[in-house]
């Protein structure tokens, strides 16, 4: 006969193990579901302006933005970004790159943003810029992993000011990001980083 105390301990130990196992399985499921959770379907609607915000080392969205411009989805492009080093704004270089690939120089603007802690802090500046130019609709080209959240967050800021917004991303970027993403440092970093941003923004009001 097993000692009742021992039996009690064993029962609790097995309960704790099962709970831990379930928690680990839940975390693993959530981790592998990140692309499905974070990436929204790309929606392209005819707009007054393309807001090109997918400016990072691993993005190849130039071609996509030029294609949208040539198809007449929008007549103006604004490259949006903050500095990545001392007085170094990728938006300036993206603008030059678009111009060198045939986009009319007068149709592309570089919008330099100050460093902000989160999207919620920099979106009002973008909305302000769009409104100041009299544009009523915008197509936001962002990173694939940021698409669902941008669609949710940015839409609120834009629609509050009477500007219609659709959110899209480069299909090439999406393909590259989701290919073996859990094995690659920068891809995992971006997916997990985005998930963290979404979770944190729910708790801290300054970013909502």
């Amino acid at each position, binding site marked *: 006969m097993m000692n009742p105390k021992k039996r009690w301990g064993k029962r609790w130990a097995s309960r704790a193990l099962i709970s831990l196992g379930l928690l680990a399985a839940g975390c693993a499921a959530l981790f592998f579901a990140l692309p499905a959770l974070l990436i929204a379907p790309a929606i392209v609607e005819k707009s007054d302006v393309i807001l090109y915000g997918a400016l*990072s*080392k691993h*993005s*190849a969205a*130039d071609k996509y933005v030029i294609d949208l411009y040539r198809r007449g989805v929008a007549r103006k492009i604004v490259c949006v970004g*903050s*500095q*990545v*080093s*001392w*007085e*170094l704004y*990728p938006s300036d*270089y*993206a603008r*030059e*790159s678009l111009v060198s690939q045939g986009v009319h120089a007068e149709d592309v603007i570089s919008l330099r943003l100050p*460093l902000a*802690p*989160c999207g919620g802090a920099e979106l009002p500046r973008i909305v302000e810029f769009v409104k100041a130019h009299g544009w009523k609709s915008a197509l936001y080209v962002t990173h694939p992993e940021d698409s669902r959240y941008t669609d949710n967050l940015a839409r609120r800021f834009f629609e509050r000011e009477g500007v219609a917004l659709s959110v899209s991303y480069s299909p090439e970027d999406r393909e590259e990001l989701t290919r073996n993403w859990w*094995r*690659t*440092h*920068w891809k*995992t*970093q971006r997916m*997990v*980083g985005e998930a*963290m*941003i979404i979770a*944190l*923004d729910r*708790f*801290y009001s*300054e*970013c909502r």
Partner: protein
Amino acid sequence: MEQDEEMRMKDVIQALNHYIRSRRARVLLIVFVCMLGAYFLTPVLLNKAAEGLIREDRIVKSDVIVALAGDYRCNREKRAAELWRQGWADNVVVSGMSYAWGFHTGEAARLYVMSLGVPEEKIYMICETLNTRAEARALDDLMRERGWNSAIIVTSAFHSRRATYTVERAAPGRSFYSSPVPTGSPEWTPRAWWSRRDDVYVTVREFTSWANTLVGGWQ
């Protein structure tokens, strides 16, 4: 009547005494004490955990000062230039990576360090440093090539312990001293970090990176 009341009181006291001696009461007391302890100890532990991310050594004169990449505000480069002006080393290394549009963040960092008074010939650059481990390997190669044996590692405070640990592992036999950028806004602040969104993001990410570094996960 009075006797009835007295009897009832006795019954209540007896029941209470019995309950106090019962196992459930003991368990409840332990749970209460634990919750009280957790309430008061959690902030202390969280602060300690965050402070544990910082490594600040007593620096000695070295061959080179290394400003690690990843600081958009360039406070790391600013601190490296400051240490150079104080004479802690003759050379400065900046780090960065190239973008598809043809610019290099390390180049911008180099220009910034030059604007702070460090001569061009004293500045070296390590390229394509996507993460701390890649940066540590590139630094080891450069130190071997230049014959340097000691370096002062300048990075953000939250990154300082992991960066120095990574560099020491990548380049055994050389001496490294950590001299991080001071904490405080707009940089990271470890005290009560959980109350500020920015600091929560940085701290949690750093703990995750530590776990990844220790298990030798994503490179």
